[in-house]
Structures are given as structure tokens and as C-alpha cells.
């Protein structure tokens, strides 16, 4: 298997370049991350993030043959013999496949990603009906890997102003939460030509999400709520 990997060390390299690795996967190498680890054995200067190696932490998000995904849950069997790996597009590269996620997390924090409830906390937990809990399905599963936001041209052009699909999916997760008391403030925070309405529904986010979530649907629900509130 041939891996062409984007390499860039700002301390040494003038400009990024692609480096090829010939790797022979062992029978136990099921996922792309296993092959990438073998490439790192050949060349320990190759840098990438990885942690849980089972699609939960979202560390090893990268651009795999032109499409964003997680190396740890991308099956080797589904890949061609030549695989091109690049860092997530649109974010500054720190080194090789490692990108600076500061802007991404800034947008995530801007939507206040926590339940806000000013009532005195009950003795045990704040209860939800099964139906209220169901509202959060398809939202809470997001692992913040940034595959969606970095596949979104609107986020590429305005990462400082557009919240991006991941942040907006999370915004709707808290708007939809029956325990949250500030839905209207959350909508105020998003009613903005840049923060929300840079989304032109091209659905790259849906295509890229390795957890098969649908940020576009969440964004449309926010827009529907804004309309409902206004008419």
C-alpha cells in the first residue's frame, strides 16, 4: 500500500511537500490508522494526532483521498492501493497532519455548549421524558473532530465569523434540550448574517461526518425556529 502524506515542519521546511511511504499492512491492520502507525515506524518524524483509536476522541481527523474522515475508523479494505493523506483543510497546519484547532473551538465555545438552567438544582438529576430525550438523538453524538466544519467552504472563507456546522449542531443540541432555559437567547446569538446564515445548505458536512450525523438538518431546524419566533 502506498501512502502519500503531506509533510510540513515550519522549523525546517520552506514549503509543504508530499512524501511517499510503501507500507505492507499486516493481517491485523484493519484501519487506516494502523497503516499510518506502520509508516511512523519507518519515519518517526511523521506527526499526526491519535488517541482512542476507535472513533470516539476525534483526534485523528484528516483528509483521506480528498474527503475528511477519521483514520481510525476508515477500513483499509475500502481504500485503494494509493492513499493520499493531507491535514484537515482550512485550518493552519502546525506540523504534518496536525492542525491548529483554536478557531474551531472558539466557535464551539461561542454557542455556550452547556445546559443553562437557573432553577435551584434538584436533589438528584433534572429529569426528561423519553420524548424529550429523543430530541437529542443525532446531536449529542458529535465528537468535535472538525471533519464537517473543515469541509465547509463557508467555514474556509469566514472561520472567524461563521460558527460552522459542528458548532451549529451543538447549538441546536442545547436549544433542543428541555432542561435548558435560554433557547431564545441562544437564537438571538445566532440570528446573524455571518454566524448562522453563511450556511448555504451544500451539505458537505453531512457527507463528511464520520459519525453519520446531519448538521444541515440541525441548522435548518434553527432557521425554522427563528422563522417560527418571528411570524
Amino acid at each position, binding site marked *: 500500500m502506498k501512502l502519500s502524506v503531506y509533510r510540513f515542519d515550519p522549523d525546517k521546511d520552506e514549503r509543504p511537500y508530499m512524501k511517499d511511504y510503501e507500507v505492507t499492512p499486516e493481517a491485523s491492520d484493519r484501519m487506516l490508522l494502523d497503516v499510518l502507525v506502520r509508516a511512523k515506524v519507518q519515519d518517526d518524524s511523521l506527526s499526526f494526532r491519535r488517541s482512542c483509536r476507535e472513533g470516539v476522541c476525534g483526534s485523528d481527523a484528516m483528509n483521506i483521498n480528498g474527503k475528511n474522515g477519521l483514520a481510525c475508523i476508515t477500513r483499509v479494505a475500502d481504500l485503494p492501493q494509493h492513499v493520499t493523506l493531507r491535514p484537515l483543510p482550512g485550518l493552519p497546519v502546525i506540523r504534518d497532519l496536525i492542525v491548529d484547532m483554536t478557531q474551531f473551538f472558539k466557535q464551539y465555545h461561542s454557542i455556550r455548549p452547556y445546559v443553562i438552567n437557573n432553577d435551584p438544582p434538584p436533589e438528584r438529576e433534572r429529569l426528561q421524558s423519553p420524548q424529550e430525550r429523543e430530541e437529542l438523538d443525532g446531536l449529542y453524538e458529535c465528537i468535535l473532530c472538525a471533519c464537517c466544519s473543515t469541509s465547509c467552504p463557508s467555514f474556509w*472563507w469566514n472561520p472567524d465569523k461563521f460558527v460552522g456546522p459542528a458548532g451549529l449542531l451543538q447549538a441546536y443540541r442545547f436549544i433542543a434540550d428541555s432542561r435548558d432555559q435560554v433557547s431564545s437567547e441562544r437564537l*438571538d446569538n445566532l440570528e446573524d448574517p455571518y*454566524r448562522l446564515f453563511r450556511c448555504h445548505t451544500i451539505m458537505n458536512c453531512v457527507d463528511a461526518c464520520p459519525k453519520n450525523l446531519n448538521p444541515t438538518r440541525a441548522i435548518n431546524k434553527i432557521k425554522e425556529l427563528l422563522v417560527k419566533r418571528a411570524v
Partner: protein
Amino acid sequence: MVNRVIVGAHYGMGSWLAQRITAVIMAVYSLILGFVLIEEGPFDYAEWQELFANGWMRVATLLFAAGLAWHAWVGMRDIWMDYVKQDGLRLALQVLTVLLLACYLGWAVQVLWR
């Protein structure tokens, strides 16, 4: 002036909704016009003039043109907001777009009521 990223213009929903409503208006008009052309056409000059002498046809066409102008305004402003980073240039392009669309609309009125 401080160099900070400022957001929070608190508009956008109206434009987004207007773009959808004008799309429906344009789709309905196109279907009606298509139906008339298939049923009554082909038209010669006199028949074409007769069709547009009808007050309702003129009003519907003006509604279509106004819808198109509004739709195009939202779309063009989106493009300028997406790609043009320099505020002054963006404002100039937006003003130019409004002027151009207003001219087109005035021209449409002139054509319909000449």
C-alpha cells in the same frame, strides 16, 4: 479603530425567508407562463402584445421581476459576504448591486407599461 471580529448584526432571517418566498413566486409564475406558452403558443408579435396588454399579466410579470431582483440581491450579497474581505470594497459592491437591480426593475416597468 480596534481590530476585532465583530458579529451580531441581528438580521439574516428575513433575507433568508425572502429568498425562499421569492423563489416560490418565480416558480409559480414560470409554471403559469410555461402553461400559457404551451397551450396558446407559438405567439406572433400581435398576440404577444395582446397577452401583455392584460393587466393581470403585467402585474404578475412585475411581481416576478421584483421577486427576481430581491432574490438576486440576497444571493449577490451572500457572494460578496463570502468572498470579499475588505469592508469598503464589499459595501461598494453591495451598493452597486442594489443600483443595478433597481435599474433592471425600472427597465422592466418601462417595458411592461410602455
